[in-house]
C-alpha cells in the first residue's frame, strides 16, 4: 500500500499539469455543451424539463474510488458519450439534416471536437496513472433500438446532448478533485519529511 501510495503521489506530481490542462478542457466543453443544449432546445421548442434518464452506464461514484478508478470511470463515461454523440450526429443528418448549416450545426461540431480532445487528454492521464494501453469503451446498452418516430429521435438527441453536458461537468469535478488530492498528498509528504529531518 505504501508502495502504491508512493507511486500514486509520484504520478500525480508528474501529471499535475496534464490534470490541470484536462480540467480546463472539460470546463470549456461544459460551456460549449451547455450552449449546444440551449440551441437545440430553442430549435426544437422543447421545454426545459423535456428530458430525463441516463444513457451512459458507468459504476456509481464513490468516495472509496482511488485516482485510477475515478479516471477509469470518467474516461469510460466520456467514451460512451462520444460514441453516442457521433451516432446522434449521423442519425440526425440522415433523418433531419440537409439545407444550410447554421449556428447549431457549428456548435455541434465544436462540441464533438472538444469532447474528442478531452478524451485524448483523459486517456493520457489514465496511461500515466495505470500504464494501461488503450481503452475500449463499453457500448453495452448504448445500442439504439432505432427510435420509432422522428420525435423520439429528437428526444434521444436531446438526451445525448444532455449526457455530453452532464459528463463534461462530471469531468470538471473529477479532475478538480484529483488536483486537490494531489495538493493534499504533496503537503502531507512535505510534513513527513520535515518531521523526519527534525528527529534526525
Amino acid at each position, binding site marked *: 500500500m505504501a508502495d502504491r501510495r508512493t507511486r500514486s503521489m509520484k504520478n500525480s506530481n508528474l501529471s499535475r499539469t496534464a490534470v490541470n490542462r484536462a480540467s480546463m478542457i472539460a470546463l470549456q466543453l461544459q460551456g460549449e455543451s451547455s450552449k449546444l443544449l440551449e440551441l437545440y432546445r430553442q430549435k426544437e421548442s422543447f421545454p426545459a424539463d423535456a428530458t430525463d434518464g441516463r444513457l451512459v452506464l458507468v459504476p456509481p461514484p464513490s468516495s472509496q474510488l482511488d485516482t485510477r478508478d475515478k479516471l477509469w470511470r470518467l474516461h469510460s463515461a466520456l467514451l460512451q458519450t462520444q460514441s453516442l454523440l457521433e451516432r446522434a450526429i449521423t442519425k440526425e443528418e440522415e433523418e433531419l439534416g440537409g439545407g444550410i448549416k447554421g449556428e447549431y450545426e457549428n456548435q455541434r461540431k465544436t462540441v464533438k471536437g472538444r469532447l474528442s480532445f478531452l478524451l485524448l487528454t483523459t486517456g493520457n492521464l489514465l496511461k500515466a496513472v495505470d500504464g494501461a494501453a488503450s481503452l475500449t469503451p463499453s457500448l453495452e446498452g448504448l445500442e439504439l433500438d432505432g427510435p420509432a*418516430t422522428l*420525435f423520439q429521435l429528437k428526444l434521444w438527441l436531446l438526451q445525448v446532448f444532455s449526457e455530453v453536458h452532464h459528463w463534461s461537468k462530471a469531468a470538471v469535478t473529477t479532475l478538480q478533485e484529483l488536483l486537490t488530492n494531489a495538493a493534499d498528498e504533496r503537503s502531507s509528504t512535505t510534513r513527513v519529511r520535515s518531521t523526519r529531518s527534525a528527529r534526525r
Partner: protein
Amino acid sequence: MPKLIFQHTLKLNCSFPWLICVLVNLLALNTHAQTIPTVPKQVSLSADLSVKELTISWFGGAASTFDLIILRTEFNTSVFYDTISATMNQASGRHEWKWTSAEPLECTSLSVRIRSRDGLATSEWSKMDTFPGRDLPSNNTLQMYPHDRVVEVGSNMTFCCIVKEGKTFKEMLYGNTVMNVTRLSRRSYATTLVNVEPTGVSGSNIVCRLEDLSLDGAVMFVGYPPLPSDFVCETQDLKSAECHWKEARDSHLTGGRRRTRYSVNSRNCNVDLQLTCRLPLWDGNWTLMAENSLGHYSLSDSAELIHRVRPVAPVNLSSVVNAWNATVMWQWTYESYFTLDLNCQVESTNHESKTLHVFSGVGLRSVKLSGLHPDQAYTVRVRCGHQKYFWKWGNWSQTFSFKTQTDVTDPPDVWMWMNKDRTGLVVWKPLGYQQSHGRVTGFEVTLWNPEDVEQHTQILPPNTYSVRVNLTEMASLGVNKKVFATVVVKNIKGASPPSRVPLRFIDEQPLVLSKPVFTNNRLFLFWQQNATNTCNYLVEWLDTSCEHDCPVKWIRVAAGSTNVSIESENFKPGVRYNFSLYSCPSDSPQLITRWQGYTQELVPSRSVPLSVKSQDSKVVITWGEIPLSDRRGFVLGYNVYISNGSELALLANLSSSEMRRYVVKGLSVGNYKFTVKSYTSAGEDTGSTASITLEPFTDALILEMLGALGTITILLIIVTFICYKKRNWVKKAFYPDIPEPKLPGDWSRLQGPLDVRPSPHSMVHIVEKPERDFNKETLVVIPEEEEYFEKDEPVDTDEPMSLRYYNQVVDDRPIRPRFPDSSASSASSLDSGHTDVTYTGIQTSGSSLVFQPDPQGSSEEQPPEVVLYDGGYKPQMHPKVLSDDVVLKSSNPFQESEAASSVGYKPQCSWHLDSPTDTAETSSLAPSLGSPTSVTSTQFLLPDGDGDEKNKQQPSSAAATWFSNLLLSSKP
C-alpha cells in the same frame, strides 16, 4: 318471411268476401314483402392509416343505397351518419365504401353499422363492427398520432394524444403555443392545426404533455410538391449529355427522406451538389421527373447535339512574348474540337485594366495579341463557343501570365517655369508604366541655343522630375538668345527620343481673368478657336500665391481643341489656381488666355484684421484684406455684427469685397463689441471681434451751448439793428403820437364848476377787478401831500414820496382823453409792457393802498371802484366827449357799464393847461390816458396775498387787453 307465408295459408279457409279481403291484403303484403331490403352482412373494416381512410365492405344483396353510421365506440358519439351509394364488386360480391376520417384512425376505436335502403324502406341495422383504436386498455402507453407526416402548405392537420392509463392529460403544444383540445375518448385527446405554414428542415413538433411532465410528440413537415424549371441538356465532349435545371420554388422538404428525387429518362440523378444529371449518350429527347412526398412534376427537352455545344475550357496555356505583342497558345481536351468551328475570347489583364480580344477559327488553339506594352505583366484567360451554332460560352481557362520584353521609353512630357531673374525649373512628368517600357536608369537634360554649338548637359538619377536652371550663369547662352532645354530618358534599352521646351519668361497678363467651370468633380476650361494656330496647346496650372520656382503642372491639348477637362484630384480645395493656356508650347509658347479659380471654395481660414474707433458719436469699423492664401475662396463680402450679449446681431451685410469700412451711428454711451466676418460661397469665417467704449461727449455739449448762445446773440443783434433801422415804424407801431384833445365849443365857457388846478394830493388807486381786468392791479394816483395820508390812512413815512408816476413819452400835445376812465387806462398801460414801474420804498398794502379789493366788487357789472378824497381830483362828467366815442363804447360792455356810472372818468380841459410844462406833475396825472407810460415809484408796492396770486394769472390776458387797446388807439 316464414311468418308471412304462414299467415297466407290460414286465410284460404274464410268466406268469399273475406277471401277477397284476404286476397287484397295478401297482395299488399306480398308486394310489401318483395321491397324489404336485406340486412347487410359480414361487414368488414380495413384502414389505410397514412391517409386516415377507413374501407368498409359488406354483403348487401341487391341494394345499392345504404344508411351508414360511424360512431366513436367509447363515447358512442356519431362522427358520420348518412345515406350512401355503394356498388357491388362483381368478383367478390361485396359492397365497398371508403370514408376519410378527420382524426387519425389510431386515435380511438370506431364502430360502424349499415342498413340497406330502398326508397323509404330500410332494412335492419347490421351488427356493429368496430375498428379498434390505439386507446384500448391493452395498449397502455403514451402515444401521439400521426407520426412524421408530410403535408402541403395550407392544409389542416389533426393530431391526437393517447395518455397512459391512470395519467392525467395536461396540454398539447405546437411550438410554444398551447392548442385547443377535443377529447375523443377516455384516454384520447385531439387538436387540429389549420392552414399550416412551411416548416424548417427538421420539421415542427406537436408535443403532448401529461401532468407528471412525461411527454410524447409527433413531427410534422409542411412544404410544397417539386416545381423544377429551365431544364436543358447540352454537351461538352460532343458525345454525352449533361442536363441542368433549377427549382422554381423551395419545397421546404430538404431533409432526410423527404427531399425531392430527380430522374432524367428514368435514370436517377445525384443532385447533392447541384441540379445536374449526366447521360453517357446524346439521346436528343429528355424528360426530367421530380418527385417528393407531396407530388411529382416532369419537364422535357429536345435538341441536336451541334446546337448545344458548350465548349470545355482550354487547357495548358502558353505564350511567345515580344515587346509590343504576344502569341497565346492552348490545347483542347477532346480531339473532336480540332474540327469544331470556334469563336474564342482572350481576356488580357494589365494593372487591373482588362482588354477582351475575340478570335475565330476551326479548332482554334493559338492567337496573337497585339497592342501590348513593353515590360508589362499580362494575365490572360481563354474561353470559346461554337461559331456557327452559338449556344453558350464555355468555361474560362485557368489564367496564364507573361511579361512583355522591354523597349526604349517614350519621350518625356517636359515643361518649364521661368522666374523673372532668368532662373527657373525644367520639369517633366514621371513616366507611367506604359511609357517607361522598362526600368528607367536616369535622365539627361541639355540646355542649348540653336545658334551656338556649346551645350550644357546634366545627367540626373531616376526619380528626378525637375532640374533648376540659371541662364545668367551660362555666358555662352547670352541674355537675349533663345534657349531650349532637352530632356532624354534612359533605360536598359537605351535613350528615349528627346523632348524639348523653350526657356523664356512669359509675363504677359491677359486683361480678363475668367473663372473655370467645375462640375461633376472635373474642371472644364473653354476658349475660342484660333484659326491661325496649328500647334498643340498646353494648359498649365499652379497655386496663385506662388511666385518663384513654382511647381507647375500641365496637360497637353491637341491642336484645334477648344476645351479641356481636368480631374479634380489634381487640385486641393480652398487653393486658388491660375490656369494658363499656351499655344505651341514646344517651340514658342504664347499665352492665349488665363483663368483663375477654385475647384472647391472653403470658408476663409483667417479672419480680417479689424480696428474700431469712435468718431464723435459714431463708431467707425475698418478692416483689412485677408491674405490670398487664407481666403480659400472668392470673398463675396463682409457681415458686420454687434455683440448682443451672447449673440451676434447682424448690423450690415456688405456684399462687396472692396468695402472694408462701416460706420455705426446713433450709439449711446457704453461698451460695444463688433465682429466682422468675411464670407465666400462656402460661408463665413470665424470672424474678428473688436470692442470699444463710448465716453460721454463733453466737448460737443459745450460747443452746442456756445453755439446756442452765439445764435441768440446774433439774433439779438439783428433784432436790435432792425429795430434801429425801423425805429420810425416801431415808434409808429408801438408809440404812436397821441393826438391833442379837441375841445368842442368854447373852451372859456365852462358848464360846470371846474377845478383847473390839479389836485396836489391826488392818488391813483390800483383797483383790482379780476373779472373785467383779469385780476390786474390798477394804478391809482396817490396824492403826494403827506398831510393827506396822515389824516386818513396810515402811511409808511420812511419814504418822502410814496409814488411817482409819469409818462415817459414826452408829448407836448394836449392829452386826448381816452375812453374809458383813467383807472382802466392805467391798467392798460401796465399791461402793455412798456410801463416801467420803479419802487424805491416798501409800502405795505394795508397802509399804502386806499383801495381794497372787494370780493363782491369783482363781478362784471361792477366797475373798478374809485375812491375820491376831499380836495383831490374830481372827475367831471362830460357828455359831449362821451358821445364822440360812441362806437368804441358799443364794443366794450365794460366801458358801457362804466359810462352808465355816475362816477365815470371825464377828461378835464383844465388839467392839460396846467401840466404841459410841469413834467413831473403832469406825468403824475397822465396815466389815465392809456398811452405807454413809465411809472416810477420810490416805494415797493406789496400787494396782499390774494392779489399776488391773481397777478400770476394776468400776463397773457393783460397783454391781450393792451393789444386791443393798441388797435383801438390806432383807429381814426
